[in-house]
Every structure is written in C-alpha cells, then in structure tokens.
C-alpha cells in the first residue's frame, strides 16, 4: 500500500498545476496551491486529521534551515510532492515534501546597490501555475522558473529599482496570468498593479494606483504630488472566479507622515481595488483611509466569503485593516456594509454611514511627536488573517500598542527615502497582542487569546477545529477555533514572522511554520 502511495506521489510530480486545479483546491486539501490556500484567500485548510483531540501529539516531521540570514516571512506552496519556498532576500527553493531535502535552489544576481526602503529585504513566497513557479525580487524583477528543475524560463524587470520599486509579496497566478504588486511608497514611487502572460512574461496590463492628470481621482491630489504619490500594491490579493474580479489592497500615500504637498483624499491609496483581470480596469474602489497620515496601508489580505449581512445573503470581501477597523464590503459593488474597530484606535472618532473615518486632525504626526493607537505597524499588517467557513469566524492576530508619530521633512530624490517623518513603537509591558475571533459578518468579538507582545505572524484555521498561530517570542500554538482555548504550544527558538499553512504527505496532515531562520513541518506520530 505504502509503495503504491509513493508511486502515486511520484507520478503526480510529472503533472502540472493548471488554473482549474488552483480554483478547485478545496477538493484536494492535501496541496496548497496559492499564497492564502485558495483564491478566496481564506487561509483555511479542509484537512481535519489533526484536530482538537490529538493536536497536542504533534511532532516534528522535518525542518529546513535557510542559508541566508534575515527575516523569514515565506508562505510555502505545496504540490505534487514538492514544497516551494523563498528564502531572504530573493532565493527560491524547492524541497522534497517527504524529507525537506532541497531539490533545487535559485538565487538571481542582486545588484549591490539595490534599494530597499520601507521594509526589511524579505520575500513572502512563490506562485505556481502549470509547470512554473513565479516570484518577485528585491530588485523588482519577476522571475519564472521551471517547477521541476528551477531553470529560468523568463526574468523581467517589473520596474526600475533605482527609483525604489521592489517586490516582497507572492504573485497571484490565475488563468494564464501572473498578477504582481510592488513595494516602494517610502521612496515616493507611483504605485501600480501589473499582469503578465505566464508563458512569456509579456506585460498584459498595468493599472496605476495613483491616477494621472485627467483620470478619475486625479483631483484628489494637489499639484504634481501624484507623480510620487506612493500607493504600493505590496501584498497578494484575492480572486473571485465567478465574478471574475481580482481584489487588491493599496498602500500609503507618499510622503507617509508629511501631507503638506498632497491635499485631498489621495486616491487610490489605502484602498481596496476590484479589478477586471483581463484588462486591469478598476471596477470599484473603497478607500479605507482618505488622506492617510499614519501609514495605514490597506495591504492586508482581502478575504472573500458569503454571509448573511443584516438579513440579506451577500457576497462579501472583508479586511482587518492596519488602521484598526474591520470592514465588510459587498464584493460585487464595493458597498460598505460594516466597519468596527477590532483594537483600540485613537486616530478617528469612528466611521460615517459610508465607512469614511472622522479622522482626528489632532492625531496627525507632529515634529515633537503625537501619541496614537495603534502604533506605526498598525493593528494588523502584512501577515494573514484566516476565515473558517465552519465557524464563520474571521481570525486576526491583532496588536494593542501605541506609538509616537513624528512629522519630518520630505524632499523627493530618485531612490531615496521620501517618508516625511516616522514613528516610534511603545513596546513593553503596556503593549500586548491577541488572536481575536470576530464574527465574520459583523466584526463582533467572539473570543480572544492574549499574547504578551503584539504579534507579527499570521494565522491558519482548519476543518479540525483549530487555529494555528505564532508569537514574537517563538511559540507556535494551536487554539480551539470555537472557544480560543489553548490546546498545544511549542517553543521554536526564534521569532515567528510568517504564516502557518497545512498540507498532507501520503495522506498524513502536516502543519508548516517558519520561526527564526528555519522552517518547521509538524505532523502526528
């Protein structure tokens, strides 16, 4: 039997990952074929072998140690006996799923004068489609590798790194297209979202997140400020195959903390965009934080689900925004349905009926500092939330921490910082974090599990009734998805700054997480 299984896996390795397989991933939960597990970006595993009764028996299956130092934020992709990861800053590696032994690794030439302003030089993972894997690099290239060998199929410059463009997020692969966003608002880039032909690397469309003169939204910028207006697209979006819409969050306006040159709402920064993946046309937008001055990127993962909202069945998209509010929008129209704080916030007196904040101008950054909740990292940030269709709960690793916001000088010069200030975190005994379970349709808190330090790691929920998460001090843990009760915890010896995911090896469920500079895979004995 075992021999047969092994044979099946090996022959599967000759297969491919067509778009239809990614779209139907719920039917084969032993794989993990897109960044957040499915196009709805739910980071939910249908596997239930590891459950509330046996999770405490989890044992190490294997570990992999990264070759380069640096923060590991990779979220693995698993298909056909192979795990695909990225290592900091811009290496892609394929591991044998059974043993963790590398099958190939690829490191591109990164110029020594590479410009990375706004985040550490991290990479959050690859996308897979057909027989290739795709990932972005810190010098703003998009690279396609043969999935079996790591041989380069194509390598293109998405934009000019010397102007501050770079890539940290995993691309989104849909039918024949690779959609990729960029970082760089802290250098005053003009943000965009790109789609490329997966076979050739030819660009199919580019949609600017900051409109040029005469375009819709252009009047929301003062003078020439749009040219360096920011609006990065630095985290992976989600996709609704039925509505055929891609959902992508946008980052802060530039300069981040000095708004002198950019009066107006600064569209489409700090927004969620719904785009037609065939043309890149923006079908609707919702701006969470008009005229942002705190770096409230809306780069958090937009999760798609259907729910009864105020008595009506809706197709919705939700986001636990960096600004501290949990939003539910109609994903067909962009209509605002719900917006409630999921952490303490002091920068706004709530939201109006259309979801627009009553931003407090006395919370704006000042030269001598302004104390605001949350801190500069926000209530959430890049790490993934999770939605369980079994509990209808939205799980978020949330931060309860204040920060001091400073306004500073801002001068635009190609490839240099264009931030206009910054912030200082008030870490320590007064700050804390929590895994919070929100009723997905309303944002109402169902339970929380406290952490002594505001977290920088994502969550996974499973059909086994579990939520997996990671702590800044290195603890990997599993909670009861219904109650938040702690069921298992293990110290991994390094800060967890990654998202958990789940897959199966020969029918045995595994859970993977990175901590420190290592990737760990756990399964039942």
């Amino acid at each position, binding site marked *: 039997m075992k021999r047969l299984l092994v044979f099946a896996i090996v022959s599967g390795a000759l297969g491919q990952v067509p778009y239809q397989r990614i779209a139907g991933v719920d039917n084969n939960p032993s794989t993990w074929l897109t960044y957040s597990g499915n196009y709805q970006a739910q980071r939910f595993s249908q596997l239930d072998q590891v459950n509330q009764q046996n999770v405490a028996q989890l044992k190490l299956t294997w570990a992999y140690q990264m070759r380069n130092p640096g923060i590991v934020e990779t979220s693995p992709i698993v298909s056909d006996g192979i795990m695909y990861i990225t290592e900091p800053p811009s290496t892609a590696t394929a591991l044998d799923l059974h043993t963790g032994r590398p099958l190939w690794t690829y490191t591109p030439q990164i110029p020594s004068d590479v410009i990375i302003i706004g985040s550490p030089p991290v990479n959050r993972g690859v996308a897979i489609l057909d027989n290739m894997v795709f990932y972005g690099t810190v010098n703003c290239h998009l690279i396609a590798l043969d999935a079996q060998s790591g041989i380069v199929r194509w390598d293109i410059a998405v934009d000019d790194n010397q102007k501050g463009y770079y890539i940290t997020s995993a691309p989104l692969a849909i039918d024949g297209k690779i959609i990729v966003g960029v970082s760089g608002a802290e250098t005053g880039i003009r943000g965009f979202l790109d789609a490329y032909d997966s076979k050739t690397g030819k660009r199919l469309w580019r949609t600017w997140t900051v409109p040029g003169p005469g375009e819709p939204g252009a009047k929301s910028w003062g003078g020439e400020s749009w040219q360096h207006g920011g609006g990065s697209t630095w985290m992976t979006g989600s996709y609704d195959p039925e509505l055929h819409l891609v959902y992508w969050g946008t980052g802060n306006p530039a300069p981040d903390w000095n708004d002198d040159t950019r009066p107006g709402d600064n569209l489409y920064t700090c927004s969620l965009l719904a785009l037609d993946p065939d043309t890149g046309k923006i079908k609707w937008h919702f701006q969470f934080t008009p005229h942002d001055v705190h770096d409230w990127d809306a780069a958090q993962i937009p999760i798609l689900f259907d729910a009864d909202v105020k008595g009506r069945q809706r197709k919705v998209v939700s986001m636990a925004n960096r600004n501290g509010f949990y939003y539910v929008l109609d994903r067909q129209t962009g209509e605002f349905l719900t917006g409630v704080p999921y952490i303490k916030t002091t920068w706004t007196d709530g939201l109006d009926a259309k979801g627009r904040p009553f931003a407090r101008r006395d919370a704006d950054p000042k030269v001598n500092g302004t104390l605001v909740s949350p801190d500069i990292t926000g209530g959430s940030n890049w790490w993934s939330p999770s939605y369980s269709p079994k509990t209808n709960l939205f799980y978020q690793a949330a931060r309860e921490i204040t920060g001091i916001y400073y306004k500073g000088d801002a001068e635009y010069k190609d490839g240099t910082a264009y931030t206009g200030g910054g912030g200082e975190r008030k870490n320590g005994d007064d700050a804390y974090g929590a895994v919070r379970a929100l009723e997905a349709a309303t944002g109402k808190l169902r339970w929380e599990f406290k952490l002594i*330090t505001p977290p920088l790691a994502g969550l996974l929920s499973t059909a086994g009734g579990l939520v997996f998460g990671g702590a800044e001090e290195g603890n990997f843990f599993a909670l009861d998805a219904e109650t938040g009760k702690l069921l298992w915890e293990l110290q991994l010896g390094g800060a967890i700054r990654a998202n958990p995911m789940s897959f199966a090896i020969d029918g045995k469920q595994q859970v993977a997480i990175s901590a420190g500079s290592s990737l760990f895979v756990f399964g039942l004995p």
Partner: protein
Amino acid sequence: MRAAILVLWAACVLTAQSPDEAKGKQLFLGMCSRCHGLEGGGGEGPNLNRPVLTHAADNQALLAIIRDGIPNTGMPRVRRMTDAELNALVVYVRSLSRVAKVAITGSAENGKAVYNRLGCASCHTIAGQGGSFGPELSNIGALRAPAYLRQAIVDPAATLPRGVLLVPGRGFNEFLPVRVVTRDGREVRGLRVNEDSFTIQVKDAANQLYSFRKADLQTLDKELGQSLMPNYSGKTSASELDDLVAYLWGLGGAK
C-alpha cells in the same frame, strides 16, 4: 587628541545660533529629550553635556548613531530622517557640550565607603566584584544622569529600567518584581528574568531560578511600579547621598 577636541569645539562655536541649531533643537526636544534631558543633561539616557561622547568620536559617527541607533543599547533609531534633519541634530547635539555640566557636590571617595557600608555590593557588581541579583553598575555613570541615580537610590520603584536588550525584550521593564502562586500552592516572589505568552522565568532573592508554565499558575502578579531594591530614603544623610551619587556618576560618567 587635544587638537582634535579643539577643532571640534571650534566647529561647535562656529555653528552656534545657526538655523541648523534651532532646527536641531526642535527635533531634539521631540525625539531625544525624554531620555537625554531637555538640555542634554541626561536622565534615563546618557548626559551629553561633554565634549567627548563615548560612541561618537566625530560628527560622522554621531550622525550614524542618530540615523541608525546603537544596537543592544537604549539608543534606538527613532525614525528615518533626511540628511538636513540629521545634520541639524548633529549641530545641536554638539552644541550641548557647551551646556554647563550638572554640578556634583559629593565626594566620590566618600561615596564608595557609603556604597560599602550600605551593602550595595550584595546585589550589584562593579568591576567584576559583587552580587548579581540587581543590575551591574560598572559603567552606570555613562548610561544615566545624576538625578536619575539619586532617584534610583531613594525611590527605586520610580526608575525601573526599560529593557534595551533581547532579554526580556526591548521596552519591557527589567528587574520587574513578580509574585507567582502555583496551582499546588507554592509561592515565589522574585524578579522576572524572561517571559513569553505561555511561560515565565523568575529568580528569587537567593538567585534561585524558577521556570513556570502559566497554565500551571493560579496567580501571576506583575508588580508594575514596584522594585525589590530597598528604598534608601532616610537611611543616608543628605551628604552621604550626594557622595553616593558622585561615586556612581564617576563610574564611566563624570569625565
């Protein structure tokens, strides 16, 4: 060396009252004064009213410190700054060397005798000698200002140091008193050595180490605002206190 100091001093004088200095002062008040004092006299952070700064031999080094912070110390990179902002801060910080140093009236030599008489060495180490329950003081004068040192003696709970190292974690209170009662009724009072969301490590006054899983505890009191160091207010004369401050200030500071 003396020539270099003279050149530095001259550079400071030449830039006095410049617009940079005014801008630097504004930035300093916002970002630096909480630790270094309003005029650089120090506090929780080092005194800057001196011509030679420990980590900043020249303006280039000073600029790098303001830009990047100093790893594993209390000096953070507060925020990203433009070159003009950095230069203004360098000019202003150098100008602080001309501010008169805090007057120290006590005798460091007498202070050493007070230190010994009070038994401070049972908990503190200076130059390799002494106990290890409390913080090491070998270089304390370089890290804190006299007013802070005085308060630490007469009201130690008011000055619990904020963590600057990886243990127990940046920003956490160091030497935090905790009281722990296990589910089977054992009680331990001591200092938090480290903590995560699931466990806590504690040492008691005998330096005995305890490791607890929080799930096994019925009580975990973090006694914020308290200190296990005795309060020496009223246990020293005013002149003895001055002498003790002078002694501690001399440990790496009063130069």
